[in-house]
């Protein structure tokens, strides 16, 4: 009897442990998810083609991530689309970038993703390496005007011959400076590496220990190092699926990053973590101008500008000519739009995409919310109406004119870029002085090699 009781208790608690095992799931769904139905009747797809209209009455869905301004503009454009094409109902779903990727990954994998999706460039490699997740856009070329896009940019979104997505804009990293803080320190914004290194000391002497001319997180440091190396050595980071730099060259790059901390150019990672902010644009030290520089994507810099406290001015910087004799830096497709391969309405989905990316009505509403448009029609329309954000346009033209190198698709692989990934390990331990420059180089070479060989 006693034994039976004990056994019962044991099995009950095993059951309990088992049921807890299911609770380890993510509980922090912070992304605002909204669905909206328009007032148009939700006709099903079988209601037949109305040959006069050139499209079927149906319901399609779209998803994107972004900030508030992008949400508002996109919703306005979708509503205008529904007005123009009565009978097509568009359901939409949007949120912030944080955790958006994990949510979309499960949808793509389970076949429940919306018809049209804003995608990150590396999703093509991650989710559709065999080209089966997204629809080949060549099949809807009669509806979606591909001729508006430069051929070489479309090639970046191809798997074999299958065009997986259409690139909306190109982007690269470039320096932005808080001019107000530099003015306070009595110097101009740095245009060369030498000026930047000198600014570190000036900031310390004139403004105090809390002021730094630049702030870079782990991943920013990796990008900065690659820009530096490309300028100096004149070759792609990865070539033909293999790391293209020797250990000595990488050690040179890592030493450079280390020297930025030593010269009071940027705060150590420990200081930045201690600030307790989720991201730099939410860090009071950026908001108030203590950290006076960033190396950011030109397509997302407006977020940092709008975070600044009143009276601070952010300006676009220049690339450093004294890093080396080459124009180091890479550009990438900032984001694209793709149609899910399982969609029941490829034609109507392509209509929506064309409206948002190529047609005047749509592009007027969306203007530079997703960067400076690659579509020739959209760019012409936005330029003629003077709709583009001046700073975004300036930065983008500098990026495209300067950056000479290619970004390999695995550079942003989550095993490298993720918060438990290789870049975090290397630059974290380097900043905490747990790794020597040589150990950091070894760890980086090993980690990148492992990802490239996957």
């Amino acid at each position: 009897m006693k034994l039976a009781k004990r056994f019962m208790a044991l099995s009950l608690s095993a059951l309990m442990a088992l049921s807890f095992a299911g609770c380890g799931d993510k509980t922090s769904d912070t992304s605002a998810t909204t669905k909206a139905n328009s007032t148009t009747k939700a006709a099903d797809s079988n209601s037949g083609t109305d040959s006069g209209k050139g499209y079927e009455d149906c319901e399609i869905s779209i998803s994107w991530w972004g900030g508030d301004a992008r949400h508002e503009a996109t919703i306005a454009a979708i509503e205008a689309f529904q007005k123009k094409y009565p009978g097509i109902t568009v359901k939409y779903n949007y949120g912030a970038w944080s955790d958006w990727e994990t949510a979309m990954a499960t949808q793509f994998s389970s076949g429940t993703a919306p018809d049209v999706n804003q995608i990150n460039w590396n999703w093509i490699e991650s989710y559709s390496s065999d080209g089966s997740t997204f629809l080949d856009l060549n099949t809807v070329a009669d509806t979606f005007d591909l001729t508006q896009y430069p051929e070489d940019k479309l090639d970046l979104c191809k798997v074999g011959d299958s065009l997986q997505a259409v690139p909306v804009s190109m982007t690269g990293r470039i320096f932005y400076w808080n001019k107000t803080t530099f003015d306070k320190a009595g110097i101009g914004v740095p245009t060369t590496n030498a000026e930047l290194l000198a600014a570190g000391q000036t900031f310390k002497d004139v403004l105090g220990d809390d002021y730094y001319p630049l702030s870079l997180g782990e991943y920013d440091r990796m990008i900065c190092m690659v820009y530096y190396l490309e300028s100096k050595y004149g070759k792609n980071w990865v070539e033909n699926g293999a790391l293209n730099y020797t250990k000595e060259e990488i050690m040179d790059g890592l030493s450079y990053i280390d020297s930025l901390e030593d010269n009071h150019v940027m705060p150590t990672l420990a200081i930045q973590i201690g600030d307790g902010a989720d991201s730099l644009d939410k860090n009071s030290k950026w908001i108030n101008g203590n950290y006076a520089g960033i190396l950011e994507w030109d397509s997302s810099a407006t977020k940092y500008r709008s975070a600044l406290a009143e009276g601070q001015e952010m300006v676009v910087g220049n690339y450093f000519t004294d890093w080396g004799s080459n124009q180091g830096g890479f550009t990438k497709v900032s984001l694209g739009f793709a149609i899910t391969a399982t969609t029941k309405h490829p034609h109507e989905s392509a209509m929506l995409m064309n409206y948002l990316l190529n047609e005047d009505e749509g592009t007027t509403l969306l203007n530079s919310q997703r960067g400076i448009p690659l579509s020739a029609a959209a760019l012409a329309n936005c330029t003629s109406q003077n709709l583009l954000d001046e700073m975004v346009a300036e930065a983008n033209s500098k990026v495209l004119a300067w950056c000479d190198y290619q970004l390999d698709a695995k550079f942003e692989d989550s095993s490298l870029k993720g918060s438990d990934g290789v870049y975090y390990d290397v630059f974290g331990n380097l900043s905490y002085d747990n790794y020597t420059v040589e150990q950091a180089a070894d760890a980086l070479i090993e980690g990148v090699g492992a990802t490239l060989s996957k």
Partner: protein
Amino acid sequence: MDSAASTHKSKFFKRNVGLFFILIWLIGFIIFKVYPFATSLYYSFTDMHLFNGIHKFGLFQYEKVFTTSKIMKSLKITFKYAFITVPLKLIAALFIAYILNFKIKGVNFFRTAYYVPSILGGSVAVAVLWKAVFKNDGIINTILGFFGVEGPNWLADPGKALWVICLLRIWQFGSSMVIFLAALKGVPADLYEAASLDGAGKWRQFFSVTIPLITPVIFYNLVTQLCQAFQEFNGPYIITNGGPLQSTSLVAYFVYKYAFEQYEMGLASAISWILFLILLVLTIIAFVSQRYWVYYSDDEN
């Protein structure tokens, strides 16, 4: 013969009619617990990738768990976390419950006040707040600065960040406290009377009367808290993002990272199963050990 069988049948039905009452729960349990549980066991023997599917079978994921230093390190941290938080939390809960068991003015207010963190504790908002409390110019360091002490960099020091996470858990002792409180109320007053007649003070009464009588509840709290501590996710995910330098990367956090950021479902399943086995072993140890320290009043011994 036939009638005997049918009586047998109806007896069976009568005896098990309760099954129908739990049928809805049972269906949910099978679909949402048993099925994923079984699937994850299967996946743990494969190279299941969210987008590439399954290509090989074997024990290699388990091998990988034990040969990847990152994962082994996180297992160690998880043990540390559990063995710090569980005893401290139980002590805190029991101590406060004991005090709140006295007839003090406004005791209901205090009971509620101490229980509140448990309701809030699991939530994202509190974790975000926790980060703000411990940041460099947060309230803790401000108070320390008031006394002339320069506060440490809590979030960025690998040695201290784990304590920040631990404190969040210990702070949420309310639910164990309520269970302790109920147990304390069940201790017969005549035992205390007898003890005080024998000259035992409050402390002596606590250790010689209260503790032995509530050991079954201590045992229950120990097992549940152990199970929960090993699966802690919110703290490292929201407050420290597993950092700095992976010093707060608990196992559950890694499972999430591997499963949903790197899509390595096979590996994530294998880690989960190892976590489950660890919990199972610890629970068995607890159950075996209880004959030495847990007192059941209906026990033959």
